[in-house]
């Protein structure tokens, strides 16, 4: 067995110092080591987007990064999303997905939400085409995407109003 490697990674504002095998994927680290099972693993080869997390603010697939490559960086997972807003409220994206029924089984939803956070920061007033392009790396097998697009529009409006 190769030697374990010490990593220090901040996840949802909390610093974790662990020793991991170099081959351990970040998605497995989050789920198995930290028990943060909100990050879902669908295809495990970079297609479905269910495992999307934020790494230093960028939406990336956690199934395509070794944990050791994330050392010293900050991660946000779905479990930390509601903490971005004050109080006991949900994040506007979470609200909007619920309101518009932007999910059915919900397996893909954490990945969609995480992809959308930096997207709506970069592009607070997206067109439908831009929304669909941004979400092209996230697969949903239930909804047909219509209500997901509606949710993004609703969230964009709410985020803009919140920023005023």
């Amino acid at each position, binding site marked *: *067995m*190769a*030697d374990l*490697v010490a990593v220090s990674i901040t996840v949802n504002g909390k610093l974790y110092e662990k020793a991991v*095998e*170099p*081959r351990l*994927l970040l998605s*497995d680290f989050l789920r198995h080591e930290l028990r943060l099972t909100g990050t879902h693993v669908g295809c*495990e*080869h*970079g*297609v479905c*987007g269910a495992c*999307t997390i934020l790494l230093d603010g*960028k*939406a*990336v*697939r956690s*199934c*395509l*990064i*070794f944990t*050791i*490559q994330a*050392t010293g960086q900050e991660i946000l997972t779905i479990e930390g999303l509601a903490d971005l807003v004050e109080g006991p409220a949900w994040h506007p994206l979470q609200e909007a997905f619920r309101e518009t029924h932007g999910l059915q089984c919900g397996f893909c939803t954490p990945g969609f939400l995480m*992809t959308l956070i*930096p*997207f709506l920061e970069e592009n607070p007033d997206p067109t439908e085409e831009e929304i669909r*392009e*941004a*979400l*092209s*790396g*996230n697969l949903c097998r239930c909804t047909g995407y219509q209500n997901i697009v509606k949710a993004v529009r609703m969230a964009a409006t709410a985020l803009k109003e919140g920023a005023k």
Partner: protein
Amino acid sequence: MSLENIACAFPGSLREALELMSDETTRGRPIAGGTDLIVQWESGVLEMPARVVNVKNLPELKGITRSDSGVVVGAGVTHAELRNSDVIRELVPCLAEACATVGGYQMQAQGTLGGNVANASPAGDTAPSLLVADATVVVESVQGQRRIPFRDFLQGYRKIDLRPDELIVSFILQPRREGCREGFRKLGPRNAQAISKVMGSYRGHVENGKITFFAVALGSVAPTAVRLPKLEAWITGQKISPSMLEEVQSRASDEVSPIDDIRSTAEYRKWVSGRIVRGFVERLAEIQ
């Protein structure tokens, strides 16, 4: 998860990384975004190395700058950074367009230009744009730097001119000249997240209805991405006309030598190559 165990090294600087690469006992497979490597390791397409050297976020491999010799892009610059860069959008727009079609939103945030080139797939989406921008690859080892024209750097199917002790550090791209138009077109089964059947880039200039300059490159039609030198030589000085467009299409089809594989057939790729290049010339005609 079927990955075998490996050792890893975390250089904090390019110098440190090069020192690791210089010695057989410490060198390893450089890994940046990991979007190609991890998939290939997991599926068994590539054998896992005993060691990886993490070059993700090495500060010396970041940045897009203008210099006298061209636009310098660090090997660690991501596709997202390229597609959003004002410098690239202005001076090498075909590369910005190509990067906007790589994978999906997350892949673009992760994958790097150096990684796309080092993966050396004939279907690598950035290669045609690097060819039409007459890119130079800067590679470095502890011995020093080498500068290699990108077209020579691509040596064959998944073969590049990179020695075991070297890392790709940057690319120098020639900016388009005033009045030149350029673009990228990709054909795959789906608009996003699809590996290309055929893709290409062009850069061209038209004056009084005549083509005064034309560079075109296609990918997925040969062991490496290729320029079409015969077509480029023929087209220079030609007046754009319907019959000329027909001839562009057939000449471009004839100049490529694609194969049948899981994504497409040789016959279809030949035909599409002609259509893509014809489309480029049609776009040039629009701006007269």
